Each structure stands twice: as C-alpha cells, then as structure tokens.
C-alpha cells in the first residue's frame, strides 16, 4: 500500500460558466521514506496541490489517500512549511514554535515542551534570536523558524510549498542542506514543491513535472540515481545529473513551447471578396 496516493484528483474553483479547472486528473503515489519533488511553472496550481495533500481543501472529484485513508482534515502527521513563512508576527520565535508544540503534545510536561522548543530552535541555529519577533528577522531566518515549527510537531511527512523561493542563493543552499539532514536523520517522507529544477535534483529521489494549469496534470516522472549525500560542487560534472537535468528542462521547455504555439495558431480565412453594393444613381435618374 502506498503511503500517500492521489487518484484521478480534479480541483476546480467556481461553478457553471465561470468554473475553472485548476488541477485535472492528478495521479501520484509516494512511498514511505521517499523524497519527491514536484517541479512546475509559477501559477501552475502547485499550491492548490499542496493544500489538497495537507487537508486545507478537498478535491472536486477523485481521492487523496494518506496511509490508505482519505484525507478529511489537516493533521499533525503532515507538517507543512508554507511558501510565505506564515509566522504569527505578534509572537516571538519561541512562542511561535511553542504554539505548535502545545498542540502536538498536549499531555507532556512543561519542561519537556520547553526542552523540545529550544532544541528545535537550536537545530535551525536561531538560539540567539529565540526571543525576537518575526519582523526583526531576515527572510532566511523566518523560513528557518517556519521549518522548526513544522518539524517540532514531529510529523511523519513534511510538505514543503516552495519553501526557499524567496531566499537568496547562498541562504537557499544552506537551508537545502539543513532540510536534507533532518530528512535523513529520521527518514521521514518528504514532498517538495519547487520551481527550481536544480533544487529538485539536488534534494529529491524522484522529480515529477507539473504541466501548467488550467487543467494542470502531472508529467512523466524522472528518477534521480545519484548517491547520497550529494555534493553540490561535484554534481555539475556528474553525467547522470547532467542527463536528468537536460531531460527535465527539455520537457518543461516543450510544454512552454506547446503553450505558446497554441496561442499563435494561424487560422485560414475563407476567400471572400467585398461586393459593390452602391446604388447606381445614374440609372435611377
């Protein structure tokens, strides 16, 4: 039995004439312990797909199964790292994580919770900023808090919605490694949504392109057979890496071209000539 399974999932917004199909016929299976990346253009329905899996929205038709059971609601088993951090600005780093820990471990002692919060803050190396509010932190630090918050609930699966999209390249690289470390340590299942092919190849076991919406569907999957831990600098010379990267980019480019050629289609016009309908005044006079 697959760990997470999406069967013929469709999602549309609106109804009647204004109905727009965002996702169409999505089929996806993820096994336990796998790291899967979904790569797609911006606006192709990636966030909708994430929200379906974490339980914030329900599919219009089809099924989303988590460990064989349909997803009805959000759950502590699936931790979410949002694209825009979504930290509560009136709470400090500690309080933001405390909120999650309190919900996930309601019956534990205070010292256990305190210890847990502090250890997760330390894990993302923010101990010096533990009592700061989000607005005093940089974008990378905020995202690290968001990662710590999601992981502090000890989820079985981590869902990441373009978690590093707004960060600069250097911070991005560091956080990628941090996420990989955490994933590697206790072999959680992970789903990464991204628009960066390189990031996908560096981090994931499988990459699945999302064909852009409306009516977005998943394309063929690409397996990444590169041994872990992967070395970012050596990766550029790796033959397997180059091959996969080129294949994915080629595929995505083709989709892009398909889209633009659709709009530039040349219509053949019927061969008509205007007829002279002016009255012949001379004749009537």
């Amino acid at each position, binding site marked *: 039995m697959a760990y997470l399974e999406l069967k013929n999932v469709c999602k549309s917004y609106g109804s009647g004439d204004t109905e727009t199909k965002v996702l169409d016929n999505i089929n996806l299976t993820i096994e336990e312990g796998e790291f899967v990346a979904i790569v797609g253009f911006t606006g192709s329905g990636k966030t909708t797909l994430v929200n379906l899996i974490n339980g*914030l929205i329900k599919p219009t038709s089809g099924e989303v199964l988590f460990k064989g059971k349909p997803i009805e609601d959000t759950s502590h088993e699936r*931790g979410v790292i949002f694209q825009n951090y*979504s930290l*509560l*600005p009136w709470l400090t780093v500690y309080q933001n994580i405390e*909120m*999650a820990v309190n*919900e996930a471990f309601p019956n534990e002692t205070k010292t256990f919770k305190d210890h847990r919060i502090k250890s997760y803050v330390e894990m993302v190396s923010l101990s010096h900023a533990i009592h700061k*509010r*989000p607005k005093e932190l940089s974008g990378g630090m905020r995202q690290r808090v968001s990662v710590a918050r999601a992981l502090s609930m000890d989820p079985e699966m981590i869902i990441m919605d373009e978690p590093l999209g707004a960060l600069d390249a250097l911070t991005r690289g560091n956080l990628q490694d941090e996420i990989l470390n955490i994933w590697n340590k206790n072999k959680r299942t992970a789903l990464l949504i991204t628009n960066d092919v390189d990031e996908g190849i560096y981090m994931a076991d499988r990459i699945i392109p999302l064909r852009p919406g409306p009516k977005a569907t998943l394309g063929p999957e690409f397996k990444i057979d590169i041994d872990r831990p992967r070395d970012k600098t050596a990766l550029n010379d790796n033959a397997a890496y180059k091959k996969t990267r080129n294949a994915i980019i080629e595929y995505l480019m083709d989709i892009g071209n398909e889209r633009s050629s659709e709009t530039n289609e040349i219509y053949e016009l019927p061969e008509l000539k205007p007829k002279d309908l002016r009255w012949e005044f001379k004749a009537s006079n």
Partner: protein
Amino acid sequence: MKDAIIKGLRFIGLGFFEPLVRLISGEDSKKNSIETLKKIVAPIASILLFLGVWYSGSKSLYNTEANYKIAKVLKEQGAEEANKMKDCIASGDVSCQPNTLPSPLQVWESYKLLLKDHRKIGEDKEAFKVKTASLNEKRIAQGKNPIVYTGRPSFVDQIKTSIKTVFAGFLLALLIATPIGIIIGLSDTLRTSFNWLIQILKPVSPVVWLLLVFMIVKTLTKDSTSDTSFIISFISVGLCSMWATLVNTAMGVSSVDKDYINVAKVLKLGTFQKIFKVILPASLPLIFTGLRITLSVAWMVLIAIELLAQSPGLGSFVWEEFQNGANDSNSKIIVAMFVIGFIGFLLDRIMLTIQKFISFDKNEGI
C-alpha cells in the same frame, strides 16, 4: 539619556521636539537648528498668527457692535445720551460693554477668573467640612445621613464630571461593541442578518439617542428618587459612540489574513485557541482604530448630550453661561471651547500611545 528622552517623546507622539533635544545636547548644530526652525518655530509662528487674526477680528467686531449701540442711543434718546454711552464704553465699564466675540486677552482673564473661582469653592468646601465634621459624626452615630456640600460646582469640577461621564460611556461602548463585533465578525450569517440594523442605527444623531435612552431610563427608574441624568448621559454617549468599534471589530475579525487562518488549521488549534491566539491578536490594530474613533466621538457628543440632559459637566456649563448672558459669559464659553478641544486631543494621544504599545506592525509581520 538623550536617546531615552527622544524615544520617550516619540512614543507619546511628541516626536517634533526631537531636533530641539538634539540641538541642546550640541549635536550637529546646523542641521538641527534648521530642523528646530521647521518643526517647532514654524508651529509657534502659526499659533501667533492665529492669535493675531483672532485679536484683530474681535477688535473689529467690538467696534461694529459699539458703533451700532451708540447709533441706536442717538436715534432713540438724543445726542447727550449717545455721548454718555460713548464715554461709558471707552471707560470699560462692565454695564455697557458691547456683547460680541471676546478678544484673546479677555478669554485669558476669564480663564484666570475661573481658576480663582475654583480655588474659592475649594476653600468653601474645606470650611464646610470642618464646620460640619462634629455634627456629621453625631448624625452617623444616630444612623442619619451625613450632611454634604451642595454648593455650585466649579469649572474644574465640571471638567472632572465630564471626563467621568465620557469614560463611563466609553467603557459601556467597549463592553458592548467589542464582544458583539467579534461574534458578528466570526459568523457570516450573523453579519448579513444584522448588517441592516447596524447600517441604519449608525448614522442616528446623538440627540435622538438621548431621547431614546431617556424614554427607557425614565420608565425603568420610576420608583427611584435619585438623579438619573448621569445614567442617561453616559448611556447615550456609549450608544452614540460604540458604532465605530462595532464595525471595525467585525471587519478586523472577518478579514484576518488567510495565512494565519491556514496556520491555525494546520496546527489544528481548537476554536477557543484559534479565536484568542490567532484571530484576536491579528485584528487588534483595527479594533484599536475603532476604539480611538469611539473615544473621540464620545467626547464630541458628550457636550451636546450634557447640554440637553441637564446633567452636570462642561456641556451644561456652556449652556448655563450662554443663558446667563453676563459680561464675561462669552469669554467663559471660549475658555470651555479650548478646554474641550485640548482634552479631546489628549484623549486621542492616550489612545494612540496604548495602540502603539500593544499592536504589532501589520506590514512587517509576515
């Protein structure tokens, strides 16, 4: 030290003193002198200009009124009486002063007079207390009510009463409008079902609210002999001013950023937790904006309501002075006007400071 002062000044909204503080401490004198000139000297100049316009305006009104008075006497009683009137006005005799807009100096004199009056009444009160102390002890021992001072209130007493009324009204508005606003904000159904009522009642004039409250309170307190004017006025103030808070709270609660709601859902917060830990803090800035409007509206309508409800306070002070028509009544009214304006400004500042203290910056949050 200097930075602490500047920070404190900024916090209470007097940030424009910053360049002066920097100038005195000897920091970058050229730049700070220009800043001081801009931020402090220019406003002072505008105050002087205002006083100048007021002075010359009142002077010309005074002359018009005096000329009219003399012309009238001349027409009705002849030249001799007219000359007498002219001399009388010129001598500054109170019996024949033209009744018009008072000059700034007159207003200042009245202000000092009112303070003097307040001190005198205070002394009277003390004297009364001393005089009746032994008698009151006896009365209490006999189980009777002690004798209390029932003389007329001074101007400062009136101000205190007004502030008391406005705070009672504000508290009432706070206690009614915030919970209702939160409940309405949380439920779409309730919001649509009560929207018509709120929209219709919101623009109703303070005077009508007063009459409505009067109708209800009069019936409810039929058996009581105590003075209901305070109850009537503070309830009316509360009802007039609560709408801004109600509407703002409902709007704030219903328009909480979707990201925060998603966080609450993903963390699986309970309803109670969701409301108190996410929705309320997120809508606090808007709720406070509403409360600020409420307080300033409360202070504004208070004067009109006190005036009509015959309840003691600045409103009835203004009305009594107007009815009184004494020589210095006009300047006393102007004093009251400035006091009202100044207290209103102060109340707004207090609310702004509290608001700054407890709410986060919405734009930098996410």
